């Protein structure tokens, strides 16, 4: 019995896998790679734009006197950036000059397809739905769910455990106590929680999801 839909073995896989297990799509558009750090087991899907070239230009006072490469985007472990999303560090105009600020994304963050993200910081275990826009300097704490098609206004602070939605985003609810808890090692099998068909839960450990992406 042969596999009916054997994957057309592309000469090279869709993803480039790094030593630390990061999977970066060959079709993603990444600029300024020196200014981007990925924590490991992080997935950057196709058509994702990472603007690493927009890094802080102000001189970083370093004790050793050596030139330090500024970080513009740092992404944690097991974070998934879905297709078509744009990650652009926030900027502010001061004294006629545009200054970019480093952006931080935590662990186990899921960013849905076609999002535009300029938040200053996104903490761990955050689930961002599809087509979400996050304006500059928004601050998103742990265990937050952002519903699809939401627009998070600039400078908004979303406290942990909130569910936000709407244009502009408002807090519409709280995530339950069981947010991100995969039920009793239900790692095997299918269909748990919001991730309906997948082997992972929203806000939970995304390692299974990362593993399944090839």
């Amino acid at each position, binding site marked *: 019995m042969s596999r009916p*839909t054997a994957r057309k073995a592309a000469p090279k896989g869709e993803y480039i896998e790094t030593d630390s297990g990061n999977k970066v799509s060959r079709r993603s558009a990444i600029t300024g790679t020196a200014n981007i750090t990925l924590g490991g087991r992080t997935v950057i899907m196709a058509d994702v734009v990472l603007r690493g070239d927009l890094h802080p230009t102000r001189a970083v006072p370093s004790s050793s006197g050596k030139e330090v490469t500024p970080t513009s985007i740092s992404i944690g472990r097991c974070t998934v950036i879905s297709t078509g999303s744009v990650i652009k560090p926030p900027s502010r105009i001061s004294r006629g000059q545009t200054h970019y600020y480093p952006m931080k994304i935590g662990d186990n963050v899921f960013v849905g397809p076609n999002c535009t993200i300029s938040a200053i910081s996104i903490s761990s275990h955050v689930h961002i739905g599809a087509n979400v826009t996050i304006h500059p300097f928004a601050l998103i704490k742990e265990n937050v769910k952002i519903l699809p098609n939401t627009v998070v206004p600039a400078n908004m*602070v979303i406290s942990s455990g909130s569910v936000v939605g709407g244009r*502009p985003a408002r807090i519409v609810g709280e995530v*339950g106590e069981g947010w991100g808890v995969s039920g*009793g090692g*239900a790692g*095997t099998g*299918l269909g748990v929680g919001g991730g*309906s068909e997948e082997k992972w839960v929203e806000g939970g450990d995304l390692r299974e999801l990362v593993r399944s992406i090839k």
Partner: protein
Amino acid sequence: MAQPFPYTYYACDCYDSNNTTSSKRASQILAAAEEEDRTFDPRSPRSNYSLYPLEHLLYCEDCQQIRCPRCVLEETLNWYCPSCLFEVPSSVVKSDGNRCTRNCYNCPICTSPMTVNSLDTSNDNGPPYILACPYCHWSTVEIGIEFEKHTGISSQLARIANGGKPIPTQKERDKERERRKELGSRKRDGRDVLSHSEDSPSTDTERDDPPPSHDDVFSNLGAFYKAQIEAQTPSNPFSPHDITFSSPSAYNRIMNLYSNTSSKRNKRQKPAPMREAASLIEGLTVHNPSADAAAIERIKKEGWAATLSPAQKLTQINPNIRFESDLRPIATLLCTKRSKRCRSCRHILSKPESKITSTRYKIKLLALNHIPRLSIRALPSTATMPPPPSSSTQQPQFNYNALNSGIPTHFLLHLSNPLFDPIRVTLATPSTTPGKVQSRVTILCPQFEVGANTDVWDDALSSSLSPIKRGSIINADGQIEAGKIWDRGRNWTSVVIEVVPGFLKPVAGFGQQVDGADGEEELGEDEDVLEIPVFVRIEFEADVNAEERGLGDARGSKGERERREEAFWTVVGVGKIAGM
């Protein structure tokens, strides 16, 4: 919150169980028994309040029952501002109300958080400052408010009225009221002596002044009532005019209620009725038709765009305003951290750490860890051979939003067991779904076992649980055989459920009876959603000590085992039936 298909909701029966008290008449018991026999209807209006996703449910280990948000007691641990994330002591909440007193404000137009910007053009970011909305670009310039400092916005805003005029403080208001009162009484005295005219004495003076602000009226009325209460040490315990419960008069009243001797004496006296506010100084607002006329004129001139939506009005402190020029920035509402207790046994079910920045819990008893998780998904077309399980992403996506009427569709019902003991599961479902669109549902294997949630490595090391050959449950005709499970793993089992989605419009001679009256009826909202109520009953043997169940090793043979069973309704949302 709407979830995408497919989803599973769990029903908490707390409402029904609260109703079945022991002291009931025979007819009621019969009714209750009938109620018990009836299948759960996800469409009944009441079930809106008993269905929850599993993540939102807690589990009381002492009652051995699911606890939903309706059957827990919440206790506030602390208050904090969601915007600046500072904790607000409860004493401040009591005195200053449930709003942030720092610099946190929301836009009165679009509710997004506002930022303090400088209007200074000389690149120094000096004064004056304004509050501006980064989302809709509304700013306090539009209501004529500018600030001298960029901190302490609340106190500055409290002193400035719209248009930049200062707001009188409480002291100034009191002084002003006294002055007016004196003025009024002197005038009245003079008139009474001179002319004995019956004209209302104070109206002519009030005409000239602009109408009092909301705060003025409130402080006037407050002062009037205070004076009334002080003037009359109330002996009447049921006086309707007592508004402050912390006042000494209220204390008196309560003491009178509980001490018989004094109340008897007091009952004889007829209490002098309190009078209501009679003038502007006392907080009376008389309807002013000219104000209405002015508002109408303004709408004529400026149009609807200058008026407020009901939602915008309701978020304001003074909900009686009409125009955009009356808006004030909204101070951010505080949030709370709450612990939850079981309503029946008062045990704590969840308790977060009190630190604002911490997201950890001291106690958290989740239903997730105690009841099996039920999930459903479409079975890839069964006529062809079963696909390799790993490459499910390669399959064309099943469209849950367009189920075909009348075509038998197979779904996989998947049960995973969080318990450390193997469970026996019995599933039950009505043969046709409730509601106008009747779909036929058959669970092909309603009774099965699910393995224990043992160590992951046990499964990997012992290959005894080799996957079942799926070919064996599909017989020669490509039909799925009833009574056999589809697949199983360490702590999960999946079975096949066959659904024949119903017809949105009755089709003549196709098994369904065309009811003349029903056929004409329009389908209500969400009638095309296919939701299957599934009754789940699990049986297992557990160690007697409930506390150790989660922690101890299930194989640590204590010998003392007890049979347990649990039963609950779930509602499985399969999808939407497509129109034809």
